[in-house]
């Protein structure tokens, strides 16, 4: 019964490594989007599917897989930035960090007590690995949009952990979707700032023209 969810978590863990190895922004955004869709599917293949589960699946797939990557692409165009990632630490070291993180995640997950129905699932190691990957991207990439992608992957990790609670406390997991809103605000922030600054410079030029 746990094979399909575990397969999806495994794919997500592989995507973490891909994210760490991505050298260009569009590919990093694509990896984060695919991870969002893969994670969005997990609740649908778990043992019991009722309407809160479907709601969580649909909302998170739409936000993580479509809306936020769309916004990120738009921000990339508006901000007109260089698409190479310029990492603070190189790709090979970050990959090694990510791989070590994944192994540590599996080891750590063995130490915490789990409910019998969760023992066969890879949710806890998958979640920890994504959180670690998110932190590496947040701290070791200098470009704003790549930091947002890091935050998105961190957010994916927390969502994975939340799935442990989805049947008992669906409200908490639904609340967790709001975390995606933070990501959206990040991106909207970049877009608004660029637009505002363009207008501001225009305005001041007008003002000096009037004064003289």
């Amino acid at each position: 019964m746990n094979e399909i969810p575990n397969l999806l978590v495994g794919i997500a863990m592989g995507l973490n490594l891909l994210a760490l190895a991505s050298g260009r922004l569009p590919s990093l955004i694509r990896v984060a989007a695919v991870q969002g869709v893969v994670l969005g599917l997990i609740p649908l293949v778990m043992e019991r599917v009722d309407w809160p589960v479907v709601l969580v699946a649909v909302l998170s797939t739409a936000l993580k897989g479509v809306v936020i990557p769309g916004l990120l692409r738009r921000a990339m165009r508006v901000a007109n930035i260089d698409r190479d990632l310029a990492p603070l630490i190189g790709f090979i070291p970050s990959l090694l960090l990510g791989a070590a993180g994944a192994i540590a995640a599996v080891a750590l997950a063995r130490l915490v007590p789990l409910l019998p129905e969760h023992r066969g699932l890879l949710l806890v190691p998958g979640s920890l690995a994504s959180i670690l990957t998110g932190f590496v991207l947040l701290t070791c990439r200098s470009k704003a949009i790549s930091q947002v992608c890091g935050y998105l992957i961190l957010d994916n990790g927390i969502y994975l952990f939340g799935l442990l609670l989805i049947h008992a406390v669906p409200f908490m997991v639904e609340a967790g979707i709001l975390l995606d809103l933070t990501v959206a605000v990040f991106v909207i922030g970049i877009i608004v700032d660029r637009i505002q600054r363009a207008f501001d410079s225009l305005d001041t030029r007008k003002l000096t023209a009037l004064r003289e």
Partner: protein
Amino acid sequence: MRELLLIAIPLLAACLAAVWPGDRTRPWLLPATGLVHSALAFWLLIVPPQVAPGAWVGFDPLARAVLPAVSLLFLACATYGFTYLRLRAERRNRVFVALMLAALGLMSLAHQARHLGVLWIATEGLTLTTVPLIHFNGTPRAFEATWKYLLVGGTGIALSLLGSFCLGYASLQGGGVGNLTFAALIAQGAGLSRVWVLIAWVLILAGYGTKMGLAPMHTWKPDAYGEAPGIVGAMLAGGVTTVAFTAILRVRAVVDAAGEGATAGRTLVAIGLFSMVVAALFLLATRDFKRMLAYSSVEQMGILSIGAGLGGIGTWAALFHVWNNSMAKGSLFLSTGNIRRIAGARTVDKVSGMAFLAPRSAALFVAGLFAIAACPPFGLFFSEILVLKAAIGGGHRAVAAVFLGSALFAFFGLTRLVFAIVNGRPRTAAKIAGRRFRETAGVTVPPLILLGISLWLGLAAPAVLHEAWTAAVTQLFPAQ
């Protein structure tokens, strides 16, 4: 019902502000809502309502002990903000007014949240609404500060969600049925899975501690307080941080019930002392008087954390300190805003002689310094003495020593900066810039009133407040 109005009125006013047509008349909504909110909050303080045991939201003793202070601070900031937005007429204020009001509504919700999820949603919403407020000035520096706030604050909010999930899982492991109100979690008590409770505590302390600005998670504070308008800084330092503090107190009560209270207390005291030491060192080094306020806020948060960690009388003192900090820090932020505007700069190297250029604001600034540095007879003196007393009474002499040492160094750092700005000869550039802004009653009376309340709390805090703080401590530590 009344307690829900505290949340609904500001949120409705925010919607109204979002559709209000005129930029000149819209700021009226700020003091109007502030007045209604304060009246309601003090009515609730004096005549507390019944709270249903299983309610997700309610004006319980802890909300009663803290929320009126936030409401009062908002009223002062709103009155100041009305004049401030007139001075800044070149910027559109629709988003600013609407989000200030929404922030008040969300703070009221967060203080009254009796459910782990509601608390998190309110804090998350509050974080997001304050983002455009910090960015109000629209400068590249403001963008940088906003970015850091989002990055650090966003990570904090993510960690606190993960911590909340872990606490939820602790309840499931203990045979819980998914009721995550604090009352239900406390009732489960020793039935909670200890391992998960400890993991949750670490994550929640890191997460909400980031929002509170405890060191070493305080890195967003100097930038955000430095770049945000004075009223936003005042609301962040006196309102948003208290939300995170009550969140930590509520979770601490659960950790206590689970039998790990001693661990929780020790971590709170340790992180509080670390914050005080870090703040004192940075106060000795900084040359920017708006960033100075941020480090001073880190120090005050450290004191709150120590008080909360000591429990009992220490927590009582911390609740008292919340009021004192909100009033004194609010006043200081507003008078600093005046000085910053008139001086046109914010470092010691560029600003001096403010006693001549802005005599009223400079006087308020100096008085605010004495208030925040805990000089008697201001309220902070008494709350800090009580925290110290709790530390010594509990046999934590080393804690008391570090506390006193860092408070002393913080005092040196604060006075060094404040007097460098107030004394000396005014700069020519500031003289010219200063003529544009006059010290009207609109920008001097609100900080004066806050300072007056701080003094009053020190000299004669009313009995109803004493009783409210005692009730809150009883709610948090029923055994003592």
